[in-house]
């Protein structure tokens, strides 16, 4: 079997959906900017025209994100028409799923060079899509397929006894870690600045200027336990989940370039990490958030590794309740998990998160010379979980 290597990664800064930095942007255009930026980072004899497919994850591939956005992105990124594109949807693990698809294509020698990632501008397409739907049959069977994500977070909190205090404390920690990382330039390596439109208004009407967007804008440095304790629960009366212990609506995109071992050698490209394995699992839709606690043991079994082998973990924080429950159930080391904060502070642009977390994982592993194995994992809507393992390559 051929090995698949990540040879470049990068993500946009995370924007606040609705009214944030990407409020005036199109998803295909920001994704193309980041993909271009990532391709620029590949050294050796690499050329964008060599990419054999662009695989893009997206959780709501319709309207502005529709029309097979991957194809539009590849063309906008300046790739020749010979480079095709496919859009993949597994909700919140879409951006990791695309990396796994690309890696497995390379491993089975179907391709040598692929671009994979994800994009989601939650400002562009609302959660649930523009025309939400629900299966009448599954609804009648009380499967919980239509449960709002926040309600599943409540169910996880109840089932796994994650208290309000646990959730609030965890959320505060997420912000504290994120602000520390941001202020010390910890994210500079993974972020690819993008040009965005800035619109102001004067007496003649709108004034449009270009700005460079390069800093995650959702972190709230002033977050503290006292304020959080005051917040109302929004998904269940008398529940425990609040807006602050949920990931905010986010705009973002991220990509990696994958290459076969042969091509790495042939083009003289420096490999960054080797793809080790990926697993997606299904769980009770009502307990959606516990997905990663099931995906993690499966991917470890697949790769023959133990949880103690993981030197760094990016566990997507859709909700504090499911993050805490997953940490407990899967026995994760909190000192190795989300060391620079997570989605509660940094945001969670659904289909893009997998690729953005991969970029964050690899950028941090680069700074930790002793680290070898890293994991990206997340819960996935309608009761799923996913996890992927990477091995950092050092000379």
């Amino acid at each position, binding site marked *: 079997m051929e090995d698949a290597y990540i040879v470049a990664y990068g993500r946009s800064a995370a924007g606040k959906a609705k009214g944030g930095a990407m409020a005036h942007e199109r998803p295909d255009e920001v994704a193309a900017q980041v993909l271009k930026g990532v391709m620029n980072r590949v050294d050796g004899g690499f050329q964008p025209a060599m990419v054999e497919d662009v695989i893009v994850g997206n959780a709501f591939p319709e309207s502005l994100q529709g029309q097979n956005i991957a194809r539009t992105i590849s063309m906008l990124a300046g790739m020749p028409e010979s480079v095709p594109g496919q859009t993949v949807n597994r909700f919140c693990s879409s951006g990791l799923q695309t990396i796994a698809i690309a890696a497995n294509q390379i491993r089975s020698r179907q391709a040598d060079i692929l671009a994979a990632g994800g994009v989601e501008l939650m400002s562009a397409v609302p959660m649930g899509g523009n*025309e939400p739907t629900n*299966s009448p049959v599954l609804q009648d069977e009380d499967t919980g397929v*239509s449960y709002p994500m926040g*309600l599943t977070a409540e169910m996880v909190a109840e089932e796994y006894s994650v208290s309000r205090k646990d959730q609030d404390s965890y959320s505060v920690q997420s912000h504290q870690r994120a602000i520390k990382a941001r202020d010390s330039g910890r994210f500079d390596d993974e972020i690819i600045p993008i040009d965005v439109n800035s619109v102001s208004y004067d007496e003649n009407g709108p004034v449009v200027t270009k700005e460079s967007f390069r800093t995650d804008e959702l972190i709230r440095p002033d977050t503290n336990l006292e304020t959080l304790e005051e917040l109302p629960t929004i998904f269940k009366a008398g529940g425990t989940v609040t807006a602050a212990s949920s990931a905010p609506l986010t705009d973002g995109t991220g990509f990696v370039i994958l290459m076969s071992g042969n091509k790495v050698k042939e083009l003289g490209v420096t490999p960054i990490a080797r793809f080790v394995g990926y697993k997606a699992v299904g769980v009770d839709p009502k307990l959606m958030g516990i997905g990663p606690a099931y995906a993690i043991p499966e991917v470890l079994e697949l790769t023959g590794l133990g949880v103690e082998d993981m030197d760094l973990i990016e566990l997507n924080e859709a909700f504090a309740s499911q993050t805490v429950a997953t940490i407990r159930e899967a026995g994760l080391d909190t000192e190795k998990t989300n060391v620079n904060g997570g989605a509660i502070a940094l945001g969670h642009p659904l289909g893009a998160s997998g690729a953005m977390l991969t970029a964050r994982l690899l950028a941090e592993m680069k700074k930790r010379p002793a680290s070898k194995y890293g994991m990206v994992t997340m819960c996935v809507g309608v009761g799923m979980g996913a996890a992927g393992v990477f091995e950092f390559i050092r000379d």
Partner: protein
Amino acid sequence: MTIRKATVLGAGVMGSQIAALLVNAGLRVKILDIAGDRDEPNEISKKAYDTITDKKRPQLFDLSFASNLTYGNFEEDLTGDDGTDIYIEAVKEDLGIKHEVWDKVRRTAGDRTLFATNTSGIPIASISKVFDDSEKKRFFGMHFFNPPRIMKLVEVIPYANTSSDALEEVQLFLEDVLGKGVVIANDVPAFVANRIGTQTMNDIMFRAEQQGFSIAETDALTGRNIGRPGTGTYGLVDLVGLDIAVTVIRGLQQIPEEKQFFHDTKIAGTLMEKGAFGKKKKQGFYKKGKEDYLVFDPESNDYITPDQPEFHILGKFGRDLGANLDAVFNAEDEAGRFLWETLRNNFYYSALNVPKAASDYADIDRAMVWGFNWKKGPFQLWDMMGFERVKERMENELGELPGWIKKRDTPFYSESDSIERVTPVSEFTDSEIWNREDSLLSVAHSDQLLLKLQSRNNIISDDFAGDLIESIDLLENEDYSSMVIYAEGRHFSVGADLYLMKKMHEDNRVEEIVGPAIDKLHESFNRLKYALKPVVTAVYGKSLGGGCELVLHSPIVVAASETYMGLVEAGVGLVPSGGGLAEMADRILSTGHMQNDKQKTMTEVMTNIAFAKVSTNAHEALKYKYLRNTDTIILNAEKRVEIALERARYESETNYIPKPKVNYTALGRDYKALAKGQLDAQRTGNFISDYDYEVTLDVAHVLSGGELPRNTIINQGYIQKLEKERFLTLLQNDKTYNRIKHMLETGKPLRN
């Protein structure tokens, strides 16, 4: 001059509420206040603007009206080149400040501009000193009552120099454009309403203290039983503000001839010292406890739970004000005598104020009814109690009566007299076709039918449904051009007869009796909707349940802005079944909108119905789709019948096209599953009860057209059948029965 542009001076609570009222009436309004510091010169007026246009609790009927409101400051924005037709000043009650502001205004104002000062206490003549002779003619007092959106009374106070032109113009504006009731008051302290109202409140408190009636006892006696607000005397002072009442009392005590009518009272004195001015200070004569209201106890100097007052005369009171007054007149017990003296002293003082405060006694009645929410004014009450016997007894007890009363030997009003100023409906009607228990049908302007809903509580009864069908038969088959439907009273109609529904459940006759009744209701509303000639419904106040459904089926509606519409059946565990759901679905499905828009709007409608949401004004009803853009919204509720007749006439003369009957695609099982998912999440999240879930799911079922597969064509009649089926099933459910029972017993919804 037609007043279309106004500048409000002073952006305090009153100023901003007046500004909002004017904007709601369609005027272009500027609100100004003193300039703040250099960085933020409009700080104060901007704050008022923000309050008026607050997204959550706007004072505007519709936030889009905000484009007719601007703010600024006295230094920069009194430029005079904005064509302001009227300046309304509502700055602090301080003569110096008022002079300063008006002096600035007059320098730039146009030579036809009107100047109105909103004051409750400062003599108009003294404020007028800053004006030159021409300006003085255009200056007058204009006293709004709080809150100005709701309170009908505006006292207009001319003084020696005010021209009759200016006075006529402003009266017309206040009545026709703002829909207010104007009382012309003389320039005497406290004008009319506050003078009479404060005197009687002060008199009650004084005698209550003398005779040992407690606060709670006094309020139990002096509320609705005698046609005054249910708060009673002390409760009302808490609402108005004790400090304000005391200011008026002290002002009048300074005048030698008034001094004898205004007394110092002990409890008020104590509370004034404590700063307990009432509601705005969260404590006054009353204070809100954890569950109930506590009352101030002067002995312990603390708030205590009040005892339930027990008086012989309270047992004699009922809903009939005339009978209550009779009981008061004949009472021999202490409390009864206390009430007699209350009314007697009020009658006497009111009589003394003609023509001192108001030239006409009817104006005093208007002032008290419109400004203090009395059911009847003093002279009306006097008549009801018996003009002669009251006069005689007053003379015996008080001595000499004012000259004009002494001379008078007939009651103040004849049977047909009304204190209202609008043209009564009887003016338009030529002949009566029928006068039945639930409806009155007459002919207006010789060829228009006028159908009045007059059932008990204006409920939409089975008989009324029959009368409606019959009237539309007449309209369509005889030489009538159009028809107007209306009702009188504070509310158009609060819906169906819940007692009847309860009884049908108890007697197990739901299918037998209610089923055919629904069919008849559907038939009558369909006849209304698809009538061949224009039918206009004039609506005002609450229009709920079946009342709302009648309005929904009216091809054209003239609604007063104070119209409160809602399909509230879910509150008693039912679904609207007078075609309400079918009509709402029809309004959404017959549009050419995209499927997703239809789904979204349907969910909004479902949610409004599930939570029994009632619009807070007619413009909001437009947002809820209970009214349409083709309907007319007017500010002056009392002109609704007149305007409805005009609208009906206009429609009949401009090729009225009856509503078309259309088919459309049902949202079907796809939408129902979506709604079900949403409701399931709300139930699991403890936001709604199990039975709320069931009832709302039934609403969703009907709106969807049931379990139909994609791309199935239906029509209004099909949805009406579903409505009926769900209604009959729900009405036979014990949980619905319990909701109805609870509502009838407590007036509040039961969430079982």
